[in-house]
């Protein structure tokens, strides 16, 4: 058997396969239907994961809040103190700048009064622990949603 016979064999096989291919129905619509089904399943799975994850997160958060009540209260008190102090310092700094700028522009030396920022600071630092807890929880969920949104946007940008 020579190489030509081998070539003839493969060419004959290809010719036979091409004939079979010619008898095949167009797959375009079937493939696109399958893709649509796969996409729907993927979205459904994604949604289920988000719901399960969200529910799990909430359960863990509630459990943690109940179980570590004391520590949590302590932590929030610490956050409250730090936030209060920081806000106070920032307000003082802004007020100083404000008065310095006003003084420099107008040439008037105004006495430092209680402004909006100080009011807001005292208001926020007076919030109970439960409110701080909810604020932190919402911020956490927001952070996760934001990260997910950014990742999706990057992925779709890479696709296009």
């Amino acid at each position, binding site marked *: 058997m020579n190489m030509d016979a081998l070539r003839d064999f*493969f060419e004959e096989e290809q010719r036979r396969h091409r004939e*079979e291919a010619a008898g095949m129905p167009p797959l375009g619509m079937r493939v696109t239907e*399958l893709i649509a089904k796969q996409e729907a399943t993927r979205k459904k799975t994604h949604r289920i994961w988000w719901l399960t994850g969200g529910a799990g997160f909430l359960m863990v958060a509630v459990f943690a809040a109940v179980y570590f009540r004391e520590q949590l209260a302590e932590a929030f008190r610490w956050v409250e103190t730090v936030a209060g102090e920081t806000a106070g310092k920032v307000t003082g700094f802004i007020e100083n700048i404000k008065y310095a700028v006003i003084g420099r522009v107008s040439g008037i030396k105004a006495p430092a009064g209680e402004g909006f920022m100080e009011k807001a600071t005292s208001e926020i630092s007076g919030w109970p622990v439960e409110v701080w807890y909810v604020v932190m929880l919402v911020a956490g969920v927001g952070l996760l949603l934001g990260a997910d949104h950014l990742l999706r946007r990057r992925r779709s940008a890479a*696709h296009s």
Partner: protein
Amino acid sequence: MTQNFAAIQKILDGDVRAYAALVNKYQSMVFVLVRSVCRSAEDAQEVTQDVFLKVYQQLHTYKGNASFSTWLYRIAYNTAISNIRKTQSLERRSEAYAKDLLHTTDQAEEETDDPRVAQQDKLRSLLETLPPQDRMLIELYYYKELKMDDVATICGLTQSNAKVRIFRIRQKLQDAMTTTI
């Protein structure tokens, strides 16, 4: 080439009809390639379908470094190889299937008197014994429309490596045929 790029851009923008048209355009090409390693036309049709599902998922990775058909052949090659591996492992587990196959092969051998047909049958069964990568490599080598560097790209080999392997496969087939005939 530009036409393909425009179609791909449309598909990536979410045009499903453009993808259906692309599938219809290339389905025969993919079918002929995967048919060489599938037992039946039905199996080959299933694999062709799988190939186009994978192509849709990976279309964003096509950067145009190779021609679209070479890129498509590469996906078809990988899908067909993994499919044949799955099929082979299933077959190994099924003794009944092996017996059945033996029976049909014997029948085929008994039925043929024509030496050319007998030689073709023998070659077909010899090809069955080759590893799937080698089987596809030799098939692609005999494609008129593919150059050697395309064949190497599709099979993930260097050109010299592909040439050496093809030479060995052809030698092996020739030896097997001369010893048995």
